[in-house]
């Protein structure tokens, strides 16, 4: 409906209609379609409205990370990915909701209230890029940026029935992305339109002198190892809900029916990915979040009598429970005497996981796995506990630990909720992910949420 915003009147109409449509969903934390102009009317993304997750800097918009500690912070500059979007003609119309600092799988851990799944408002959107996924699924914007540290693009994309790309680590500059776990974080794209997802990725990727870990992305597309796309899929007892099991089997069958080679593999190191991921992610988070201390920016407690007292009180008032939990965990595993046992050990197992996946991609192009063991769960106590949510990240975190790209694709609707699966590929082989998804898109067309614009 709002694929482009050519005139000021378009933007005004957009603002009015989207703010009404978003009332029952709460995908946007800030919505202002009148703030930005199209900077390149002949660019590849000219006049396309974008939602941007609220941990990615957009000049003149708030940058809250859905945390009270940054509630009033307005970004003084653009993230490189946003700069590139604007240079291609895209228009940022608002900032989307998320779990505080990206820490969660539901978006219910937003300090400003959760987001409702457009398919069923009693259910969560997934997270942490839940606002971006919901905004796209509800048809409020054709495309949105998210970030993915352990599945934060792919799992909400699966819960909301849209495509979600987690690029190769370093393919997109992290400059202007608020750091959660620096060795895992990556900016990516959510959309119902596969071609648009690819186009946006091609615009935002590339090396950036602001980010030392950004990579020079190869100009030649990756080629299939055997001339034609070949697949492997994760087999074994995966603990899937009946709906996900059904979708997973349907996807594998569709790949066979299309005449592609596909074989099952077991990946024993997957048993360890959750402790490895949470050790590394929380360790890095505890260091990254040390900067929020009430001194230079963000929330400052009114109570502090000494600088130390001020820091402790500001942090306690500003951070939510899940963030505190992860800071404590990360601080604990980095304490002297425990480092070898946890952090170093986790980094060594990470090496093993990378080796396992390099091995898989030496003889096939695409690795297939579910995005999450269940469909979108209910808000609150009827859903999963924070601990159960963490354990269920087992299918997504591997792509962050290895740094390899992965794409979440919708494979249908069961009981009124979308079912999503993941395709993984080798480093800098995003083009193969898009090729594979395109091959499957006639079998699994994207469905529209009930009241989508």
């Amino acid at each position, binding site marked *: 409906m709002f694929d482009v915003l050519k005139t000021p009147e378009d933007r005004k109409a957009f603002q009015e209609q989207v703010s009404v449509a978003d009332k029952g969903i709460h995908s946007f934390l800030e919505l202002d379609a009148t703030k930005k102009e199209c900077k390149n009317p002949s660019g590849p993304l000219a006049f396309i409205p974008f939602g941007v997750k609220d941990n990615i800097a957009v000049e003149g918009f708030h940058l809250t990370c859905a945390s009270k500690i940054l509630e009033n912070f*307005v970004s*003084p500059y653009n993230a490189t990915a946003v700069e590139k979007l604007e240079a291609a003609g895209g228009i940022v119309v608002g900032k989307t909701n998320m779990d505080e600092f990206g820490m969660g799988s539901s978006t219910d851990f937003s300090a400003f209230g959760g987001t409702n799944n457009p398919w069923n408002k009693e259910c969560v959107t997934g997270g942490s890029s839940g606002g971006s996924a919901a905004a796209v699924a509800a048809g409020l914007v054709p495309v949105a940026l998210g970030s993915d540290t352990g599945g934060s693009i792919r799992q909400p994309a699966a819960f909301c029935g849209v495509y979600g790309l987690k690029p190769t*680590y*370093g393919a997109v500059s992290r400059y202007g992305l608020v750091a959660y776990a620096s*060795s895992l974080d990556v900016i990516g794209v959510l959309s119902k339109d596969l071609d648009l997802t690819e186009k946006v990725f091609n615009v935002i990727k590339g090396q950036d*002198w602001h980010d*030392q*870990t950004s*990579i020079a992305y190869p100009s030649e597309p990756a080629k299939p190892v055997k001339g034609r796309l070949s697949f492997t899929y994760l087999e074994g007892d995966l603990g899937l809900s009946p709906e996900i099991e059904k979708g997973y089997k349907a996807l594998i069958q569709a790949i066979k029916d299309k005449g592609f080679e596909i074989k099952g593999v077991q990946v024993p*190191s997957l048993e*360890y990915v*959750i*402790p490895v991921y*949470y*050790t590394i992610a929380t360790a890095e988070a*505890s260091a990254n979040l*040390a900067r929020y*201390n*009430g*001194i*230079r*920016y*963000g*929330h*400052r407690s009114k109570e*502090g*009598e*000494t*600088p*130390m*007292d*001020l*820091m*402790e009180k500001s*942090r*306690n008032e500003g951070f939510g*429970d899940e963030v*505190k*939990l992860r*800071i*404590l*965990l990360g*601080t*604990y*595993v980095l*304490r002297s005497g425990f480092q070898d046992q*946890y952090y*170093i*050990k986790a*980094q*060594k*197992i990470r*090496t*093993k996981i*990378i080796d396992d996946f390099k091995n898989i991609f030496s003889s096939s192009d695409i690795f297939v796995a579910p995005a999450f063991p269940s469909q979108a769960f209910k808000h609150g106590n009827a859903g999963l506990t*924070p*601990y159960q949510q*963490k*354990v269920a990240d087992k299918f997504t975190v591997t792509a962050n630990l290895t*740094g390899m790209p992965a794409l979440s694709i919708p494979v249908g609707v069961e009981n009124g909720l979308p079912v999503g699966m993941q395709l993984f590929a080798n480093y800098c082989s995003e083009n193969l992910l898009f090729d594979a998804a395109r091959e499957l898109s006639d079998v699994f067309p994207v469905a529209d949420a009930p009241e989508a614009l």
Partner: protein
Amino acid sequence: MQKDELYITASLARLELTEKEADTLSQAVSQMIEYFSMMEKIDVTGLEPTTHVSIGENRVRKDEVIESSLAERMIEAAPERDERFITVPHIL
């Protein structure tokens, strides 16, 4: 995790916890640490730790003067300031 261990960790993390928070958080932290301990089972002999997947050569930009107007806007974000200085409670 014992509560005194939690308080030591919280102090290192510059977090002031209330009694009630300490109760719920010590349970949640213990549950995860226990889960982490399953990493003991895996043999990693001979494996190097991966700190980062894309560390290549150190890259440096040209040593050039560039214009930046960010300084004032950065200081504007401070919760309390006195002209160009960010103020804090007294240190001594």
